[in-house]
C-alpha cells in the first residue's frame, strides 16, 4: 500500500530547520524537519495552535522569510520558483467556499491550469479528468453554491488535482462532512496516485488513510512514526492534547 520512498527520485517534500515568527512577534515554528517520500500519505496531527496552518502556508511560499528551507521534489520554495511551486503543491483549504471562487465548477477547476497558461482543448481535457477523478464530472456547469458540502469538498480537491500536483495538502479534509461523504472522500483519496499530506484532528480518519503520521506540537515535530503506533501511545497522545473519539480503540483496527 505504501510505496517506500525510492532512493533515486527526490522526496516530494523536504522541510528542514524551518522556524518562523509572525510579524507581531509570535513565534509559531521552532525548527521543523519533515520529509515526505513520493507516493506517501502522511497525516499531520497536533492540537490547535501547534503551527499546522503556518507550516502548510510555508509549503507553497505564502509564508516565508524565516529560517530553514522547504523543497518540493527537489525544487526550493523561493520567489523565482513560485509559479512552479504553486503548481506542484496543491493545497485544499478547509472551507470549500473559500477554495471555490469562480462562478461555475468547470471554471474553478480550470483556474489553476489556465493561470499556468493552458488553453483550449487541452484545458478542457484536464478539467474533465480532474472532475472524473473525484466523481463530479456531471456537475461541471453548476455554480459551486448549488452543490452539497461534500460535493463542494470534492470539487475543491479537483481544483488542485487539475494542476497535476506533486503533493496534495489537505487542511481538515473530513471536517463538516457527513459519514457517507467522509467515506466517499476517503475512497477518492485512496484512489489517487499522488503524495498526500493531510492536516487533521480526525484521528480515525488519519488511521484509515495514512500509514504514517507526524505530530506537530508547539512548533516542532514531536513524533513521527506509524499512525497506529502513535495513536496507541497514550502518554504521547496526552502530552500533545490529542484524544481519540469515545469508544474508539486504534488497537482494534487492522490496517494494511
Amino acid at each position, binding site marked *: 500500500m505504501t510505496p517506500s520512498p525510492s532512493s533515486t527520485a527526490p522526496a516530494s517534500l523536504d522541510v528542514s530547520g524551518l522556524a518562523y515568527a509572525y510579524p507581531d512577534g509570535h513565534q509559531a515554528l521552532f525548527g521543523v524537519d519533515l520529509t515526505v517520500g513520493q507516493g506517501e500519505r502522511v497525516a499531520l496531527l497536533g492540537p490547535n495552535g501547534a503551527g499546522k496552518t503556518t507550516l502548510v502556508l510555508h509549503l507553497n511560499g*505564502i509564508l516565508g522569510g524565516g529560517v530553514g528551507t522547504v523543497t518540493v521534489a527537489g525544487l526550493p520554495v523561493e520567489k523565482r520558483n513560485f509559479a512552479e511551486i*504553486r503548481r506542484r503543491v496543491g493545497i485544499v*483549504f478547509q472551507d470549500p*467556499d473559500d477554495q471555490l471562487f469562480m*462562478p461555475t465548477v468547470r471554471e474553478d477547476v480550470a*483556474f489553476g491550469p489556465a*493561470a499556468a497558461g493552458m488553453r483550449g482543448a487541452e484545458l478542457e481535457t484536464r478539467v474533465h479528468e480532474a472532475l472524473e477523478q473525484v466523481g463530479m464530472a456531471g456537475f461541471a456547469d453548476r455554480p459551486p453554491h448549488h452543490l452539497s458540502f461534500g460535493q463542494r469538498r470534492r470539487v475543491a480537491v479537483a481544483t488542485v488535482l487539475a494542476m497535476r500536483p506533486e503533493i496534495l495538502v489537505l487542511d481538515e479534509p473530513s471536517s463538516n462532512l457527513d459519514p457517507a461523504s467522509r467515506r466517499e472522500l476517503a475512497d477518492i483519496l485512496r484512489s489517487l496516485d499522488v503524495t498526500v499530506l493531510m492536516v487533521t484532528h480526525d484521528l480515525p480518519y488519519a488511521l484509515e488513510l495514512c500509514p504514517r503520521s507526524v505530530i506537530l506540537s508547539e512548533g516542532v515535530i514531536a513524533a513521527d512514526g506509524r499512525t497506529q503506533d502513535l495513536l496507541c501511545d497514550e502518554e504521547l497522545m496526552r502530552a500533545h492534547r490529542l484524544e481519540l473519539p469515545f469508544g474508539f480503540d486504534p488497537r482494534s483496527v487492522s490496517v494494511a
Partner: protein
Amino acid sequence: MGAGHAHKLYRHGHSPVHELPPHCKLAAAFAFVVVVVSTPREAVWAFGLYAVLIAAVAAAARIPAGFLLRRLLIEVPFVAFAVLMPFVAQGERVEVLGMSLSVSGLWGAWNVLAKGTLGVAASVLLASTTELRALLLGLQRLKLPPLLVQIATFMIRYGDVITDELRRMSIARRSRGFEAGGIRHWGVLAKTAGALFIRSYERGERVHLAMVSRGYAGSMPVIDEVVATRAQWAYAAVLPAAALAVCLMGWTL
C-alpha cells in the same frame, strides 16, 4: 442558497438571439440605447418604430410579450417622477381632463418615459437572452477594466454565500429572543452589518490566499475565449443600424 440554477433574469432558450456572442449583444444594446436617446422627442412616430424593432427582436428571441412587459415594471419607480413633470414644470399650460398641465412638462415626461422604457426593454431583452456569466465574459472581451469584471464575478459567486451568512446571523439573533422592530433595535442591526462586513472581509482574505495558492498573479486567466465571427457581428448590428436609420429620419423629417 436554493435559488434557480441560472439567474432569475435569464430565460433559457436556443433562439438566434440567445446564440449570439455576449459582447456582440452588449455592444448592440448599448448602441441601440445611444441612438434612442439621441432621437428628438418631437418625432413621436420614431419611438413607435423603435418599439416595433424591440418587438421584432423579442420575437426572434422567442420571448413572450407578457414576460417582457412584466419585466418592464422594474422601471416604474424610476419613471414615477416623470409623471410629476407636467404638474410642476413652468411655461405654457394646457387643460387636460380639467387639470392644468405644462406643455414643456408633458414633453419632458414623454421624453423620459419613452426613452426610459425603450432602454429598459433593450436591457431586459439582453438579460433574458444572455446568462449573467456570459455577460461578464462579454464585458471582459469589450475591454472593460478587469478589476470591475472581477468584482462583478465575485459578486455572483459570493452573493448567495453572504446572504446565507446574513440569514444564519438573523436566526442566531432570533433564537436568543431578539425581534427587530422599531428604532431601538437599529443599533443591533448596525452591529450585524458591521460583523457581516468583517466576516466578508476575512473571507476575502482567505479567498485571495486560495487564489494565490493556485497561481493567481493579479489577472484572471482566460478560460473561455468568447469570439464572434463577422456574420455574428453583422447580425447583432441589425438592431442598432435600423434604429440609426429611424433616428436620422427623425432628425431630417
